[in-house]
């Protein structure tokens, strides 16, 4: 796992996990928070790629909330419904015209053993983007504070200052 913080605001900009350690394929980075890696290879490799107009989702973390932005959505706000699904531990985004559907898992809540709560969900639609905000519960805030404290004790490596000696 790798994380990238904004040193001024102490907010996570990017968090990625190395996943998919399989026998037949190489492990890949899975982006949990921040902009996704651009998908450049799959059109040549397998000849299939999502169209550039396809909606895609980005997760961000702000100081008070978890935030998802779904870009490239061109339908008016009445079409969307955002529901918490506590049984499957996810948030479901639906469209009444059956054009978009997404189950969003919330690892931040899973880490503190919570399930999504409908009351904390808000969403707005602006400039082709659906913005879903989920107000952080106190448990999540507490965990983040603890992690940050731990991280501030870690010594920062400056450029050219490698942790091991290259031969």
């Amino acid at each position, binding site marked *: 796992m790798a994380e990238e913080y904004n040193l001024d605001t102490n907010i996570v900009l990017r968090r990625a996990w190395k996943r998919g350690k399989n026998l*037949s394929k190489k492990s890949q980075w899975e982006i949990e928070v921040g902009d996704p890696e651009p998908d450049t290879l799959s059109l040549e490799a*397998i*000849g*299939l790629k*999502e169209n*550039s107009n*396809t909606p895609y989702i980005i997760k961000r973390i702000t100081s008070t909330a978890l935030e998802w932005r779904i870009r490239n959505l061109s339908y008016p706000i009445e079409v969307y419904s955002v529901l918490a699904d506590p049984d499957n531990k996810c948030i479901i985004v639906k469209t009444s015209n059956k054009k978009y559907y997404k189950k969003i898992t919330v690892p931040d809540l899973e880490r503190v053993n919570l399930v999504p709560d409908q009351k904390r969900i808000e969403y707005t639609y602006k400039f082709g983007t659906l913005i879903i905000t989920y107000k952080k519960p106190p448990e999540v805030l507490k965990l983040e504070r603890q992690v940050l404290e731990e991280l501030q004790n870690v010594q920062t490596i400056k450029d050219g200052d490698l942790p091991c000696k290259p031969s």
Partner: protein
Amino acid sequence: MAAGTQVKNVEVRDIARIERIGAHSHIRGLGLDDSLEARAVSQGMVGQQMARRAAGVVLGMIKEGKIAGRAVLLAGPPGTGKTAIAMGISKSLGKDTPFTAMAGSEIYSLEMSKTEALTQAIRKSIGIRIKEETEIIEGEVVEIQVERPATGVGAKVGKLTLKTTEMETVYDLGTKMIDALTKEKVQSGDVITIDKATGKISRIGRSFTRARDYDATGPQTRFVQCPEGELQKRKEVVHTVSIHEIDVINSRTHGFLALFSGDTGEIKPEVREQINTKIAEWREEGKAEISPGVLFIDEVHMLDIECFSFLNRALEDEMAPVVIMATNRGITNIRGTNYTSPHGIPIDLLDRMIIISTSQYRESELREILKIRCEEEDCELSDDALTVLTRIAMETSLRYAIQLITLAGLVSRRRKSNEVEIEDVKKVYSLFLDEGRSTQILSEYQDQYLYDQKPDVGGSGEPMDL
């Protein structure tokens, strides 16, 4: 006039089923019930209750998968169902457990040594199960658009729209995927899955919403529901490969193409060693599981002393499969020595085996077997003909009687009858000799044959004057 227009009876044949019928193609399992008791007639198996029960116990042992490196010997006179029992075991094991069948004489080849052939056979019978999580796209095709360049050359581009009950997504297509889609004949209304890692397409069926287009589909079209939820799903898949396949792919000189040509040659022991350590590593990391399968060696008396001593050693390996051997020999020479031994197998190897014996079939059982074979070969046999055939099987051999079924079926079809009568059986019985009658003829007329010599003389090579 009605009399003039005689309706010709058009023979309609089922084109779809062009299967060849093998000697044991009627066997679908061991025919045991849940408590491993053998049913009299079941899954193509008849009689040999004790042997089948024993085989059932062995089957349980193999299915547990914990015990490896055991050897089982099926011993009995010719034509008593030894190979059938082995096939039954193979069928009831299912596709996931590797089952390799070979004949004892297969190991003698100029291309590789005997022990190499045996090692390959053993490694073919050990499977490893690899678990993988893959991402798939599953949806109903709404539309496929392909744009071909006007000049005829250059890359094709296209768009594919897929939907589920909840959503719809447009994908850009590259040349590879366009070719694959055309090859699979995917059209709108089909429900397909695409493996995201490999790009492999599989057609699941046609969507129910298109069910009214009945006139445009063949009889074997499967109708399925449109998938629900998200288009992209994670799915766990399990592959089973044999260690031999891994060996071949990793032996540098041949590459994986050797798997198709069958020309694998000898594989270096270093390669095998490396693969063994790699597999042990995968096992420890929980990526792979080993499933020891079954190696079946028919006519095992054809192996020679070197092979037997090699097997002795190979069976002790912890990754060895369960080895089932079959033989019809009594006390005879061990090949490659001057010693005799039961079944032509050295005593020390016999000691490591559990022996299942088969006995001669009774008349009622022979009748059942012949009936099953008739069904398998699509022959209608009258009761009298079946009785006669059973007598023939009793007096000559079961194999000869089974041969006659097909022949009698052909003869009856010649006289435009659907049922085989006694006359047909009689006719083929007189046309084709069994082994007994052939021997009799030989002993009567052997002076008319070339290079004849009385069986009791032997070795002199000189024609005898009588």
